[in-house]
């Protein structure tokens, strides 16, 4: 059974459309939700978290309809984007209180709170009220409250905001660990290379609509309009270029200026690589490096949105 099934999901706020005709299935694991500002990511996550209900269409997560569903809330953890905490309570108090509302008794709630804060690497300075915490500390408290009750599905909206590079590394590691341990994670972020390092499966939103879903290579393959770019650094670029222009799938070959790479654009990257190696050996081209700069998520994102 799929973890999430959305069918023609729509949500609007008065005249403003948050989501429109979104149909998406997420099987499980770690899924990245990406899109520019105003794409509808937060709206989608709020629907999945059960904070709001759809204006149109259906949404089932873990087999349930999320809105105001208490049984569902036991299985889900939500870390919202907004920087909001109970300013007069300490971090452990906030997490403990929310765990008590989850149904745990006092002792268990305290134990779980301590463990969750340790997992998010927040162990010092906790005796102050949260109004005295740094932005990174507050973000970690928000994350801690989302994972403390060991949810089946973790929903995180821009979790890396406010974290320094070390903190981002630690959080990314945490999400990977959770994913490996069987927790489904739905994560929205602007930091594309970090989403890419977390997961292969992404859903790309734009103007409230689903633009693409799948693994990054699969999505890239579908973008026929944009030939794949390959940059090759080699000893004999001219000789190689003469051979490469004969390939049917090669759209263009650009000779390097000075010490730059030979830039090739091809419509079929797999066939290109199959034929490249023997040709390079024949020509004794002396290939030093081969890169495909537009294979990544950022390039896919740019092609789809730009």
């Amino acid at each position: 059974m799929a973890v999430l099934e959305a069918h023609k999901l729509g949500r609007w706020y008065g005249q403003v459309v948050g989501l429109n005709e979104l149909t998406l299935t997420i099987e499980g694991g770690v899924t990245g939700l990406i899109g520019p500002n105003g794409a509808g990511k937060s709206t989608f996550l709020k629907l999945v978290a059960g904070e709001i209900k759809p204006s149109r269409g259906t949404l089932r997560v873990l087999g349930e309809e999320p809105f105001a569903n208490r049984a569902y809330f036991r299985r889900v953890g939500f870390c919202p984007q907004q920087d909001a905490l109970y300013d007069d309570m300490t971090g452990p108090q906030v997490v403990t209180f929310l765990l008590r509302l989850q149904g745990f008794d006092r002792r268990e709630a305290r134990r779980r709170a301590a463990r969750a804060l340790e997992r998010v690497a927040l162990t010092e300075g906790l005796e102050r009220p949260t109004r005295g915490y740094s932005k990174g500390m507050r973000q970690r408290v928000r994350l801690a409250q989302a994972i403390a009750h060991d949810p089946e599905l973790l929903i995180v909206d821009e979790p890396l905001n406010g974290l320094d590079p070390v903190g981002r590394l630690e959080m990314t590691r945490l999400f990977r660990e959770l994913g490996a341990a069987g927790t489904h994670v739905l994560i929205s972020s602007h930091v594309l290379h970090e989403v890419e390092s977390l997961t292969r499966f992404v859903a790309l939103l734009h103007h409230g609509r689903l633009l693409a879903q799948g693994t990054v290579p699969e999505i890239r393959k579908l973008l026929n309009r944009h030939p794949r770019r390959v940059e090759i650094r080699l000893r004999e670029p001219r000789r190689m270029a003469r051979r490469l222009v004969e390939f049917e799938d090669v759209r263009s070959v650009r000779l390097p200026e000075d010490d730059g790479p030979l830039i090739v654009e091809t419509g079929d990257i797999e066939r290109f690589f199959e034929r490249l190696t023997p040709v390079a050996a024949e020509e004794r081209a002396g290939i030093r490096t081969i890169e495909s700069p537009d294979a990544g998520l950022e390039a896919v994102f740019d092609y789809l949105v730009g």
Partner: protein
Amino acid sequence: MELLRATLLLFRTHFRRLFFSKRTAFCALIALAPTGLSCVVLGFDEGPPPLDVIVFPTWMLMFQIVVPLTSLIMGSAVISEEIDDRTITYLFTRPFPRAALLLGRWLATALVLAVVLGVGAVLHTVTVELLADIDVPTEMTRPIVEASILGGAAYSALFASLGTFLKRPMIVGLGYAFVIEGILANMPGKNQGLALVHHLRSFVADYSEHWAQVRQGPFQELGTAHDAVVTLVSVIAVALIVGSLVVTRRQYVVTS
């Protein structure tokens, strides 16, 4: 998590937070207004009869300004504070009945108000006793304290309920408490019954003849203490039921 358990948990947590807050301190200050006024009046060489110093400040200041104002400050924040602070997201993605948030926080508010207003009323009486060197009869003091506490509970329930569906409950509450009630309660006729302050006055006036001097003009037709209690308790019940229904069904969209 069932309703009662969740309500008690929220009540305990928020009572601790509320009791030591600036909001409570400010309300306590307001509740001392009748006491302050009495000190001023009894400082004159030719002061009014001592019981007047209980009657007039209670009738005009305590019931008409202090009780509604403190209840507004505390009661309107029950749900709206969670929305404004954007912490409602954490609560409404937890497995407990949403109505528990309203009930638990309102209980904490009502208890804090009971302490603040009760102490204010008692302090007023004690101050008059000390400065005027008299004994204020119990049949005056006890109903004032009870009416203040009950009034605080009723007003706060009303404003808490408003907070479940209004964006600015404090402003609407301000209009209601000072404009609408001000007009309804001070105009002669049956419409006085629509104002909560009328029932607070009816409650105290039924217990003692010392209120006779204010029972003039538009205040001649007052109800009985029993009717006042029934009305106030009904207002509390209806407000909380309506508020619970609204908070259970409504979507609270929090902006980032």
